[in-house]
């Protein structure tokens, strides 16, 4: 695998509220390589969108990065001044959001917006920019792209709009695309089209993709690797095949079991009882323990560190070898363990 395009190290996103600082994302680490799609999955409130927003440098007060580093292509970007970040965002990072309407300016034609973005970031004449815009639209599967160039966003259907947003995100040939729930607002039949498109295009351009979604189906079809978030922390990450088919964390396992699937007639759905705690009201120990059927005493007291094996990484006391557990018991510093464990993640 080539060098990482995006590397997030021990990221903490927090909110300053009147009752103190609340950590919505804590100690989160990710890497995405060139041409790789990393799925970031979790329930609403797990912190997945905040992670994407933090990488883009678009956190708005009172949210802020509390700790950690974000590296894009070997450059640290989490502490850059806003103007520099803005240039970077346009040139090297593209964003696709849930609602395509908010990403497009209703007052300008599709062509205007594409050309403007291209010319803002690439040295291109007006004609060249237009040609490239048309080509991009064609590539994203927009029928009759020449005609669409002169239309306004409201004249397009939801699926077409999302295609235009994807074209817009890709037009400066960014190294990283952050797609936050790109299919959630779309119809089922259109979802499949957009997923296929996203996958094809990023493969072709070698773009790294951070795909934020709550939909395991989308992850299964699109992502190469997946990181499962729970209450602001990565509980399990690894290759999609590994995590989805042989989950090691009880939460991932429960999540997979609770997804209704065709052909399972008559069976009762497996369910995880309870609800995810809100940031600021996390239980001590492992945040999942109140809902975990396998919770032990230790889970209630100590937060499990992330440990990795060849294919995946998991933060659960069950997954930690008993020897290791006894070895660390004396230290009692789960955090050190996490960092050491991270160090052993294969690049």
């Amino acid at each position: 695998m080539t060098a990482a395009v995006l590397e997030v190290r021990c990221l903490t996103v927090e909110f300053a509220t009147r009752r103190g600082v609340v950590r919505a994302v804590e100690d989160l680490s990710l890497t995405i390589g060139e041409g790789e799609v990393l799925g970031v999955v979790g329930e609403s409130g797990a912190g997945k969108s905040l992670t994407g927003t933090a990488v883009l440098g678009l956190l708005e007060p009172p949210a802020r990065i509390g700790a950690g580093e974000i590296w894009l292509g070997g450059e640290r970007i989490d502490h850059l001044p806003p103007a520099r970040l803005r240039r970077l965002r346009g040139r090297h990072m593209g964003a696709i959001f849930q609602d395509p309407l908010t990403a497009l300016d209703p007052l300008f034609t599709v062509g205007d917006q594409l050309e403007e973005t291209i010319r803002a970031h690439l040295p291109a004449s007006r004609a060249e920019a237009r040609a490239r815009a048309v080509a991009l639209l064609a590539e994203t599967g927009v029928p009759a792209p020449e005609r669409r160039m002169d239309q306004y966003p409201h004249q397009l259907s939801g699926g077409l709009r999302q295609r235009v947003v994807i074209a817009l995100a890709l037009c400066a040939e960014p190294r990283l695309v952050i797609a936050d729930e790109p299919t959630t607002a779309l119809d089922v039949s259109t979802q499949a089209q957009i997923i296929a498109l996203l996958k094809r295009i990023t493969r072709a351009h070698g773009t790294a993709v951070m795909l934020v979604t709550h939909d395991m189906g989308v992850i299964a079809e699109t992502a190469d690797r997946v990181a499962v978030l729970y209450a602001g922390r990565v509980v399990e990450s690894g290759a999609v095949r590994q995590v989805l088919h042989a989950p090691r964390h009880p939460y991932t396992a429960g999540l997979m079991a609770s997804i209704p699937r065709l052909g399972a007639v008559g069976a009762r759905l497996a369910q995880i009882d309870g609800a995810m705690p809100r940031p600021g009201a996390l239980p001590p120990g492992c945040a999942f323990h109140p809902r975990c059927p396998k919770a032990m005493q230790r889970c209630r007291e100590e937060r499990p560190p992330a440990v990795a094996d060849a294919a995946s990484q998991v933060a659960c006391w069950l997954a930690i070898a008993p020897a290791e557990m006894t070895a660390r018991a004396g230290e009692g510093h789960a955090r050190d363990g996490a960092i050491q464990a991270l160090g052993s993640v294969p690049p």
Partner: protein
Amino acid sequence: MSRVAAWLDSDLAWSFRRSPVTVAAAAVALLCVGGALLAPWIAPHDPFDLAALDLMDALAPPAWLAEGRWRFLLGTDDQGRDVLSGILYGARISVAVGVASVLLSALAGVALGLLAGYAGGAVDAFVMRVADVQLSFPAILVALLVDGVARIALPELAHGAAAFWVIVLSIALSGWVQYARTVRGSTLVEARKEYVQAARLIGRHPAAIVLRHILPNVTGPVLVIATIHLATAITTEATLSFLGVGMPATTPSLGTLIRIGNDFLFSGEWWITLFPGLALVALVLSVNLLGDWLRDALNPRLA
């Protein structure tokens, strides 16, 4: 007690304490309103008692100037009225006009907004067209119109007690639109929400749905508008009085006092207009700042 404690612990109270400007504004507003309410007990003279006025006391400068008298701390106006007492009593009228007209327009606006938003169709179109027409007349013009009509309709009544209600009605008439529009907008949003459909489903009477379900959910913005409108209403009253169609000169409001004093700006009797002017600015500004704060504080935010 626990309610007070709960309120003190609420987000609203917290954001209040955190803003020194708001705390200062609240203090000034409290001072103004308190002074106005307590005027009969704290004012050194009764400026509305014509029999107590002596023309020979007229145009006395503030006490600390030469020829000033300590009987008239802030001086007197052209009729011999004590300016300080005039401010206290005038603020009383200004605040009363403000509060009454805000209540009246909020009541009318909320009712019409709910009606338009929930009934929709022709009722909505009618109410909103009336609102548009209303909006195309500036508040002052509406007030002048109402005042004019009232003066023709109630020739000898239009002065004194009736003048107060005429002003209140005038300001309310131009003020209800903002409430109606906001409430209509919120009502349209709320009426589409599923909890309203749930209530319709079980066969609740439309009036019950509007009053029990929708109304509590559209009052947030109304409170904010009301606060800002209070400041506007006080200013409008002052403007009307300044234009000479407000409160009669014998029972002057702050606006009337400023108008009276305005005639003496060039001739050096600046205290007649300056002190009431400062009082009006302090009152309006502080109420406005409180309104701004309330708007921000009630604005739903992240986290």
